[in-house]
């Protein structure tokens, strides 16, 4: 027993070193897998406080750019107003309803919220955006995030009471299903960690005739993003010699170096769809139920 104590006293520094290393590595590896870490919610509140202070200063310098984007977005929305159109047939009235359910059976699938970007980087291989909305404001994991001019930004991965962290498209683990607007072929959008100005899109067949500047939009099968929203435009087309697919370099629609205001979109049917998917998987994959 005495020897054990002597041993501990002699190697106390090494033991503390190893324990701290183990704790740090444990944090790191559990976090990478699940995007959750112990105490990160509390820390998120603290970093959020600092970031919001910083953001008040940053806002001042980026206001002009942000105004231009907002004006552009407003302009495109103004063009959608019903008063712009003359109805040929007055017996048909089209009404859009904003409450979740109406008697005609229309219901709302996606709800949008605005949020402000508190902190954002583009230099790392794993970039996150912190926004000033959290679980108190109804933000949940896996909600989609779009920039103020409508380009896809990313997906919420971690939520604290008043702030949340968004995994940006500029994250090497990021994979999003997207469509080429012109040909409707779907592919996988990812980032290679090299240049924050460009994303890469794979799995678009060479039979598609594409040109530079073609629009890429969000796909139909995502639970997080509404379909048909801008993701980016084709910047370069590289034919992959060994396969039958293109490798496309995509210029993102959102300006990641200059994010100020974003919109968070909630899929109101998320839980329903997610439950259905899981139950289907369970039902089909369950080996015990082979007597179908």
């Amino acid at each position, binding site marked *: 027993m005495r020897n054990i104590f002597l041993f501990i006293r002699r190697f*106390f*520094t090494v033991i*503390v*070193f190893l324990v*701290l*290393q183990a*704790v*740090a*590595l*444990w*944090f*790191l*590896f559990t*976090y*990478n897998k699940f995007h959750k*870490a112990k105490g*990160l919610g509390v*820390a*998120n509140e*603290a*970093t959020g406080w*600092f*970031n919001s202070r*910083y953001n008040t200063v940053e806002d001042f310098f980026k206001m002009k750019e942000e105004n231009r984007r907002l004006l552009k977005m407003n302009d495109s929305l103004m063009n959608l107003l019903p008063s712009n159109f003359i109805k040929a047939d007055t017996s048909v009235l089209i009404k859009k309803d904003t409450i979740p359910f109406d008697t005609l059976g229309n219901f709302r699938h996606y709800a949008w919220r605005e949020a402000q970007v508190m*902190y954002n*980087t*583009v*230099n*790392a*291989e*794993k970039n*996150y955006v912190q926004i000033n909305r959290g679980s108190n404001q109804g933000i949940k994991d896996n909600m989609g995030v779009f920039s103020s001019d409508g380009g896809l930004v990313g997906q919420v991965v*971690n939520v604290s009471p008043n702030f949340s*962290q968004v995994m940006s498209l500029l994250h*090497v683990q990021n994979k999003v299903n997207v469509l080429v607007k012109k040909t409707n072929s779907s592919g996988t959008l990812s980032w290679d*960690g*090299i*240049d*924050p*100005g460009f994303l890469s899109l794979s799995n678009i067949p060479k039979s598609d005739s594409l040109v530079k500047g073609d629009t890429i939009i969000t796909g139909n099968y995502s639970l997080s993003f509404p379909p048909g929203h801008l993701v980016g435009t084709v910047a370069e087309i590289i034919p992959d010699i060994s396969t039958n697919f293109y490798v496309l370099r995509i210029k993102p629609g959102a300006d990641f*170096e200059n994010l100020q205001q974003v919109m968070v979109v909630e899929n109101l049917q998320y839980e329903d769809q997610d439950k259905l998917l899981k139950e289907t998987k369970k039902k089909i994959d369950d080996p015990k139920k082979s007597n179908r």
Partner: protein
Amino acid sequence: MSDFLRNIVRFLLFILVQVYVLNKIPHLHRFITPYVYFLFLLWLPFSISRIGLLIIGFMAGMALDFFTMTPGLHAAACVLLAYGRPFVINILTPKDPTEFNYREPSPKAMGWTPYLVYAFVLTLLHHGYLTLLQWLSFGTFLEFLIKVVATTAISMLLIITTELLFPRRMKFRTNTA
């Protein structure tokens, strides 16, 4: 200002500069991430205990990690740096304690060459381990090597600049204190 208070102010300044200046500058190159926050650990007094150094290292790393959403990454590298620091100091400082009466490592206390060797070895240790941990989840081996060299070079540049721009007024260690 007491040593304790001064180091707390330094800690806050280094973390804030790292988070809001160096992490926010426009993208330079994929291999270059400017780091300078660990200079805080290099500037801690000689007299600090090894256990204390380890714990301070862990806290400094975690503080940065919570901003960059990489819990444990910088903490692990800082703990390694804090563990290695006393060994490097032992090699580089004179053995005779009467010759040596400064409180904390600085170019003036150690001389430029030993100080730069001290900073270089620990920077390399920090970046090597940090990049290794990042490389485990992403990247190729060649990229790993280039990145270690490039980030170390940039950090050394930043450290030398910082030393020249902010020469610390060195207090001698006296019996009265």
